[in-house]
């Protein structure tokens, strides 16, 4: 059975079906991310004074990732335009750049995640708070490259002030027997890290899914260009719409998580 309205528009909507489908899907995605953004607002407003981290994420790296996604968005539309001009080679070049940008984005994000999973906070039995990157850990001791924190105005605020005063800190050796609590900056560290990993993790999954779809259309699915070029161009447009949405979400995630 032939699927109707893959190329010609329906008379009632004026659109081919896939386009209606992707916009309905994107509408549901807006509500998904909207729910998480509203969670972020509630968590931030409800955080104790001095416990919501600021300047914790690496802004230059986040900026580079933002620029990578913007570049990938423009290559998607330029690729689609090349296809409309029957220039398949140029389309393939632009979309290859898009897929490479997606790899770059996920690679940079993985580096950021690694940085957070090796960033530790230690509270000793005498109430002192130490914060820094894990240098080494044995059964007897933990060695951090970081700072001792003044947590009187909140741990997050203490970390911010210490990092501002001395970015790299010093080597700190803590005996295991003195440790009351130790944990990295993973999702369970505090509510900020929970919502950070949830939002960026879900976004990264969208980047990976979008890149897989674009790559499929670009390589194994490219046979359709020879048999049904209009339908193929529509597929490229629909995958592009998803990709721009992914870019759109990041445009809001970046300032909210990194800068505010």
């Amino acid at each position, binding site marked *: 059975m032939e699927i109707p309205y893959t190329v010609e528009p329906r008379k009632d*909507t004026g659109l081919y079906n896939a386009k209606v489908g992707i916009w309905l899907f994107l509408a549901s995605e807006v509500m998904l991310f909207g729910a998480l953004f509203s969670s972020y*607002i*509630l968590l931030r407003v409800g955080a104790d004074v001095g416990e919501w981290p600021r300047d914790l994420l690496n802004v230059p790296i986040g900026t580079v990732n933002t620029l990578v996604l913007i570049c990938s968005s423009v290559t998607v539309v*330029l690729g689609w335009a090349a296809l409309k001009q029957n220039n398949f080679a140029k389309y393939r070049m632009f979309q290859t750049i898009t897929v490479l940008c997606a790899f770059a984005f996920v690679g940079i994000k993985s580096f950021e995640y690694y940085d957070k999973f090796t960033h530790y906070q230690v509270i000793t039995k005498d109430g002192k708070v130490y914060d820094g990157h894990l240098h080494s850990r044995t059964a007897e001791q933990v060695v951090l490259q970081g700072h001792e924190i003044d947590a009187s105005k909140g741990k997050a605020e203490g970390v911010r002030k210490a990092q501002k005063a001395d970015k790299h800190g010093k080597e700190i050796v803590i005996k295991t027997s003195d440790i009351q609590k130790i944990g990295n900056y993973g999702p369970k560290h505090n509510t900020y890290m929970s919502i950070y990993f949830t939002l960026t993790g879900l976004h990264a999954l969208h980047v990976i899914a979008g890149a897989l779809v674009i790559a499929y259309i670009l390589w194994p699915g490219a046979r359709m260009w020879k048999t049904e070029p209009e339908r193929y161009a529509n597929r490229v447009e629909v995958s592009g719409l998803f990709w721009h949405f992914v870019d759109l979400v990041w445009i809001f995630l970046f300032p909210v998580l990194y800068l505010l």
Partner: protein
Amino acid sequence: MGDHHSHHDIEATKKKYLMVFYALIVGTIVTVGAYFIHFDSIALTVALALFIATIKGFLVAGYFMHLMDEKKMIYGIMASTVFFFISLMGLTIWAMHDFPTNTMTR
């Protein structure tokens, strides 16, 4: 966008895409620049960052996603989405100080 384009239309559209691309780059640089300036007012910092993000979002949705030149049905879908999104945010702001009794320790 419509389905039938002349070569001239596509060339004009490509120029528009590049202009939007440059605007997005500038918007990102301004947002990050404002972060490093460190305004005294947090409200001003938040407002500026979200204002620039909204403009960037408008450019992506309007030009890259072709919302400036779409069919009525797409506008209908987006209008209902915007309605529910604003309602969701409104409920969030409304609930901000509405903590259930005896659940707050401070």
